[in-house]
């Protein structure tokens, strides 16, 4: 197979081009957002959040059809309700925030499934969860560009507040920063990007595109800016590789992208020179050895 057959030929199709551009756009914003989610220990909350969007999307679809704006607003409302609801439950009752989130998102997800089962099927559950890159339309592409653009602008303008709020919220507050605003903004951006990624990847796999590059970069980088850069580059590279792979193998594109990211992640977790498992194991054994010898 020549280079042309491997790389160029797949993108002679319009739908492949749109799929690729959409995935690359989402890689930019996803790499940034995912890094922050990982550093703020919100990775699992992102997962919960992604499922809770379903009823909002279902209701929006019921009322307005496939209007992208309506879908986004519906998803945003559902996501914010889950986030606000669990924040309220954890403040007002004995329940801690993670348990509140876990409970609320399943209720929301169930409500979404219930709504979908009553709908004339055109938005189906599988599509919401896993997406279909073949069906990326021009308006999906616009939404991806919008989500990516807004995310990048916010990250450029508020980069210092985001870093402070992520690293040391107490210091951020003590110097006059508005932590809740940053938190809510990041949440809204996450929902926006999840909705934008729904068509291409589906919300569950989209989260993989956000989180996997970030955790992989976290295994390599000791600088914040470098971490963001590596995460974005990795997301973009694996999006490209995944789509090419899916074209030639016939595997669903979202899954193929996430599997590529997964392979890099597993390799990094094992072999990253400073923070990987092998390096830590070697260090541990060496330390034990030296303890034995000094005990003699």
């Amino acid at each position, binding site marked *: 197979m020549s280079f042309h057959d491997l790389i160029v030929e797949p993108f002679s199709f319009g739908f492949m081009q749109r799929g690729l551009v959409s995935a690359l756009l989402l890689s930019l914003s996803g790499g940034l957002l995912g890094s922050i989610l990982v550093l703020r220990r919100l990775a699992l909350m992102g997962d919960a959040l992604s499922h809770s969007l379903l009823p909002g999307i279902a209701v929006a679809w019921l009322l307005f059809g496939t209007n992208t704006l309506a879908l986004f607003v519906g998803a945003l409302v559902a996501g914010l309700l889950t986030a606000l609801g669990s924040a309220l439950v954890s403040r007002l009752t004995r329940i801690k925030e993670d348990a509140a989130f876990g409970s609320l998102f399943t209720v929301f997800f169930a409500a979404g499934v219930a709504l979908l089962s009553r709908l004339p099927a055109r938005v189906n559950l599988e599509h919401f969860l896993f997406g279909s890159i073949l069906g990326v339309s021009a308006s999906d592409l616009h939404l991806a560009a919008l989500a990516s653009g807004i995310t990048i602008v916010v990250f450029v303008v508020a*980069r210092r507040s985001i*870093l402070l709020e992520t690293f040391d919220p107490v210091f951020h507050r003590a110097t006059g920063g508005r932590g809740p605003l940053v938190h809510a903004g990041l949440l809204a951006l996450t929902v926006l990007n999840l909705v934008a990624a729904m068509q291409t990847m589906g919300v569950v796999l989209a989260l993989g595109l956000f989180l996997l590059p970030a955790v992989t970069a976290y295994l390599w980088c000791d600088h914040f800016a470098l971490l963001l850069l590596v995460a974005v580059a990795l997301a973009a590279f694996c999006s490209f590789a995944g789509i090419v792979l899916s074209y030639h193998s016939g595997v669903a594109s979202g899954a193929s992208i996430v599997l590529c990211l997964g392979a890099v992640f597993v390799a990094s977790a094992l072999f990253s020179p400073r923070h990987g498992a092998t390096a830590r194991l070697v260090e541990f054994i060496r330390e034990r050895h030296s303890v034995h010898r000094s005990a003699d």
Partner: protein
Amino acid sequence: MSSAANILRFRDVTVHYGRQPALQDVTLDIPCGSLTAVLGPNGAGKSTFLRACLGWLPLTRGEIRIGDAHPQHALPRLAYLPQRHAVDWDFPITVRGVVEQGRYPALHPWQRFGDRDHALVERSLAELGLTGLAERQISRLSGGQQQRIFLARALAQGADIFLLDEPFAGLDLLAVEELERIFRSWEAQGRTVLAAVHDLDIARRIFGRGLLLATSVVAAGPMETVLTEANIDLAFRRGKSAGEDPLRTTRTAEFPE
């Protein structure tokens, strides 16, 4: 002492958590360039007092003035170090990266780091003996060094009033001496330190002034007038064990024979 030299002034400061008073009628002047230890038993309002200085707590009544300003307008001058700093030590950031954060509040979003910012960061790193460690990731430092990162960040911020919650907790002897040396040099430069301190011996040795709290002020002023046997007794035992040595009773309570 003239009132112009008092950098922090508290008048009838009262703070409630719910209906429970956490601080009651605190009236106090802190002279510029003094080292003041905030003392008292657990729940006496030491942390509340420091957080009130930051303007974080609504005052039920009373007033706090910093220089001539309300706390909200004096934020860059104030540096706050909470108890057991809860940051993620695995965070991908170097010592220099943390100290640079001190300059962030002064910069507009579109403004880049200028020569003055870099110079301030370098000077702060040097003052706290961190220059050689500047490029290290923050988990690769000792406990005392880690604390100094945050003190350096406060210096880079341009702070001259330091509100420290239990800065001596968990430090070994060497780190305590190092911190004492830092406080002394700050005192000489006219910087003001207000620190919640648990250890009365450390308070006596290092701090010139004391504030003994038990929700309200038990005693305040030069350390030797604050940490008298009667005052300690009043604050820690609420006068119940008058006549006994309060220090000894606390110790036997911790280590029963």
